[in-house]
């Protein structure tokens, strides 16, 4: 098939960028979207032009590296699919395809289609953990978890941290991502001792990173390759309210752990 790409090209962070039109004739429809970019890159290099930079690693939908907005939709037109699992047969011969990076102030562009998502790491570092040391915890089966809760926690735990939710949200809000992290641990017995502290710290960090606020538009849910439900956002709102009322403010000088 023959397609026409319109790709965001930007030399480096802070530099001016622009959409560039690249013809891509003769692409097999069983190639994946990233393989199509590989082919385009080989051709660009043959012409002495720099290849298009884009993030990718596992190419099987689990690492969360790939991050392309394709025709305005993060990860492209297929529901529940990452960019790397998308195949060219989802497109039509002769189609124009726009490829852009995640757009958010908190995700600055590094080059072309590559963005800096370290804000997500910092949100996790603020509280996305259970404080235990490695050593001799009790036997795993001393901590039974009702299957229903375990399954629900899992539905949240499948998040791959790709950031498509932010890219899709008209407000560049990461609520779906943050709520998935908060939900998982708040449903499990292991997460209880730090339950209130965790949600306060993570929401606080989310604000510091310069993301937008949620206005319940549910674009994130439509874009999420792991089909994470916005019910998690409601749960996080509940968790936050509970914590806001219950948790005492940390005293000066104690700084969150």
């Amino acid at each position, binding site marked *: 098939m023959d397609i026409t790409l319109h790709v965001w090209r930007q030399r480096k962070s802070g530099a001016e960028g622009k959409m560039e039109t690249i013809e891509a004739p003769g692409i097999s429809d069983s190639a994946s979207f990233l393989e199509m970019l590989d082919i385009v890159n080989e051709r660009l290099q043959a012409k002495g032009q720099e290849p298009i930079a884009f993030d990718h690693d596992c190419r099987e939908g689990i690492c969360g590296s790939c991050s392309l907005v394709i025709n305005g939709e993060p990860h492209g037109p297929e529901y529940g699919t990452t960019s790397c699992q998308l195949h060219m047969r989802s497109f039509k011969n002769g189609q124009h395809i726009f490829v852009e990076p995640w757009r958010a*102030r908190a995700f600055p562009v590094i080059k072309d289609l590559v963005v800096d998502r370290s804000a997500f790491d910092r949100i996790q570092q603020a509280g996305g953990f259970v404080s235990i040391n490695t050593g001799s915890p009790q036997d795993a089966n001393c901590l039974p978890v009702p299957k229903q809760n375990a399954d629900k926690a899992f539905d949240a735990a499948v998040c791959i941290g790709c950031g498509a939710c932010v890219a899709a949200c008209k*407000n560049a809000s990461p609520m779906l991502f943050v709520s998935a992290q908060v939900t998982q641990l708040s449903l499990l017995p292991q997460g209880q001792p730090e339950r209130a502290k965790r949600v306060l710290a993570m929401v606080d960090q989310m604000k510091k990173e310069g993301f937008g606020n949620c206005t319940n538009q549910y674009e994130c849910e439509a874009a999420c390759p792991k089909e994470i439900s916005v019910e998690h956002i409601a749960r996080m709102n509940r968790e936050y309210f509970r914590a806001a009322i219950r948790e005492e403010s940390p005293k000066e000088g104690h700084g969150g752990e």
Partner: protein
Amino acid sequence: MTLCDRLFKSPVGAKMLMAVTGLMLTGFVLAHLSGNLLIFAGRDVFNAYAKGLHSLGALLWVARIGLLGAFALHLYLAITLTTQNRAARPVGYAHEATMQATLASRYMIHTGMLMFAFIVYHLAHYTFRVVNPEFASLEEGDVYGMVIAGFSSPAVSAFYVLSMTALAAHLRHGVSSLFQSLGLYHGNLNPVTDKLGPIVALIVLVGFSSIPIAVLTGLVK
């Protein structure tokens, strides 16, 4: 962080305040609507209702102040949150697409602002009565006559209907959304809350618009 900061300054707390104030305003609007619909019961009933309200005295002021406070907070949060949201995406997409967000949800600030303009006009119209000098000639307490006189201008009625459309759009998203903001979006509840917004919107649109239309068409005189 104090509780106050957690509510006013955090994205989640602010949304809860939005929801609570939005709910208060919606409550007022629905009450106001049911009162206003008494206009179809005739001049006496409607005027008696208006009189009844005014005779509440202190209670009325408590309600007015509460409402004004909610309105101010709603407006303040709407503006700050929207400003932050716009700043959160300095560079937009060359190819925009929307997957499942409703039109109403995407224009909340616009429909809200239109409501603000409407309310200013509306208060000047019926509460401070500075728009139509001819109201002065009406009998004291003839709110019914005032409404008939007010809507006899097609332009004014059209503005009202337009504003009601904006309000309906605002509530179409807002009323469903406030449950999510308050954390009440969950399992069996969703089919109800999802429909509540559109239902309230429809009631508000049809209910309020019926009054200027009835006046213009001479159904109510």
